[in-house]
């Protein structure tokens, strides 16, 4: 048994990893190391954790944090995911918020996250292809029976919703004129985005199955996956109860009012209509077949 430190940081933001149930002899890998608390939490409960960080700036920051926390059972690798080829090494693969970063990188060629020297040169890869390549890599790294933990924000829902609102307003105010043409194009665009969103939700699970993962479980996460306060397994919706959760904010009456409105909307959307596909974030766990 490991001996607890006298004082340790509160790692409550890593609460999603509690869904996995680590064993003391597990070896885990964290792709991206986006959430430092999760990395430290994993190091506390596993035998060893490997962090793969494409950004050297983030690597330095994480190293400092690990020194502060006296974490020694870890290896950090400054590399991109596709430069690592592990063979059935890991008991667990953790991917926190990393999929979004990959997609942003590919779509917009942003260098915020990736160092230019190790940035993926294949800029013309579609997000779907990148995902498949990514899953192939992680699948190979997992031992049979090993667990995949994936958390990501449901970013498209806000974008889609805003687009529909914009379109509704536009169609209301626009007179019969040439302005209808761009309006029609943006409507098509919105429908495309909406269908992409719905497909990508299901598509991700299909992709996991296609890559050999089994026992796939999807969870709705509130208010977000970076600090969950409520996690609901979507296969147990009948047995779970939903009550809106928010981070506590006492600053200003406007914030309190908006929080109150959000609570009511959440009750309507999730309690009454059970539209959990609109959850702010998701966690997916899956297992590599033995």
């Amino acid at each position, binding site marked *: 048994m490991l001996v607890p430190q006298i004082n340790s940081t*509160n790692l409550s933001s890593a609460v999603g990893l509690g869904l996995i149930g680590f064993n003391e002899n597990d070896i885990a890998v964290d792709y991206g190391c986006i959430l430092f608390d999760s990395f430290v939490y994993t190091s506390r409960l596993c035998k060893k954790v490997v962090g793969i960080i494409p950004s050297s700036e983030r690597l330095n920051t994480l190293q400092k944090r690990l020194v502060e926390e006296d974490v020694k059972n870890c290896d950090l690798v400054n590399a991109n995911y596709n430069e690592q080829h592990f063979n059935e090494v890991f008991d667990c693969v953790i991917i926190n918020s990393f999929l979004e970063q990959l997609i942003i990188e590919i779509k917009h060629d942003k260098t915020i996250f990736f160092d230019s020297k190790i940035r993926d040169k294949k800029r013309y890869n579609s997000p779907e292809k990148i995902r498949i390549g990514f899953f192939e890599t992680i699948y190979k790294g997992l031992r049979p029976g090993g667990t995949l933990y994936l958390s990501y924000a449901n970013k498209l829902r806000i974008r889609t919703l805003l687009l529909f609102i914009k379109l509704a307003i536009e169609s209301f105010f626009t007179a019969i004129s040439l302005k209808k043409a761009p309006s029609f194009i943006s409507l098509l665009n919105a429908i495309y985005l909406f269908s992409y969103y719905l497909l990508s939700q299901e598509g991700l699970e299909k992709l996991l199955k296609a890559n050999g993962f089994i026992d796939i479980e999807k969870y709705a996460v509130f208010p977000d996956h970076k600090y969950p306060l409520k996690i609901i397994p979507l296969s147990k919706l009948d047995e779970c109860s939903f009550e809106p959760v928010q981070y506590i904010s006492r600053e200003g009456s406007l914030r309190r009012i908006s929080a109150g409105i959000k609570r009511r909307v959440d009750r309507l959307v999730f309690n009454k209509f059970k539209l959990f596909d609109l959850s702010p974030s998701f966690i997916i766990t899956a297992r590599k077949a033995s």
Partner: protein
Amino acid sequence: MLCELITNNTHNNNTALYKCYNSNKVFYRKAAFSHWGNKVIDNENKGYEWFYKDTGTVIETILRKKYFYELDIPEFKGKKFSSESVISGNEKIIEMIIDFYKGKWSTKDVFAIHGDLALCNFIIDKRNIKLVDWEHFHYSDKEFFGYDIINMLFIFIYHESKRTFRLSKRNRDFLRKCYIQLIEGVENSNKILEKPFQNSKAYLLKFADRFLINTNIYKKFVLSGSPLSVLEHFDSIVTK
């Protein structure tokens, strides 16, 4: 095994509560996320041990002391209550709880305080009463017998009056009835029952460290933040 996250880091307790579904079995798991969380969970387990001791019932909780502690708690069958329960409509249950408290707490060799005795922490199945959430459990002197019940009554007052502390005559009479039920047969040396609400607040503030609170005590317990005038008012109602 599938888990649902019920709460996380409530009142900065550095623990999370999961509901776990394992085949046909359902249980709750409290997990720590810091050393402080370990203390909270260890304490909670002691509370369950105290509660079950001498009852002839097998202790059904399982404590795993990994780097971060985990406590598995069985799912108790029975009626559960809201954290904002009020007096009206729950009178019979409240009387039953006071009876239960008097029986259970006065027969124990070592006196203890639950620390957060509220209706939402009871699960009641006919006459079978289970008590959960022992985070603030601690041993104390028997002279403080009654603290938990007075604290519970104050939580009821808080919700019943919608935080205004104004109660109907019916509710005031009921509070007095509860107080009489509680003090019957209590020793003269008791330090709670003379000015029950004021003395309970004094106990809470004096021994705050025993309650293992990792946040501002005024945010956690409504009794601790209530003005003296309010407590005097309710003391006079129940003791007149």
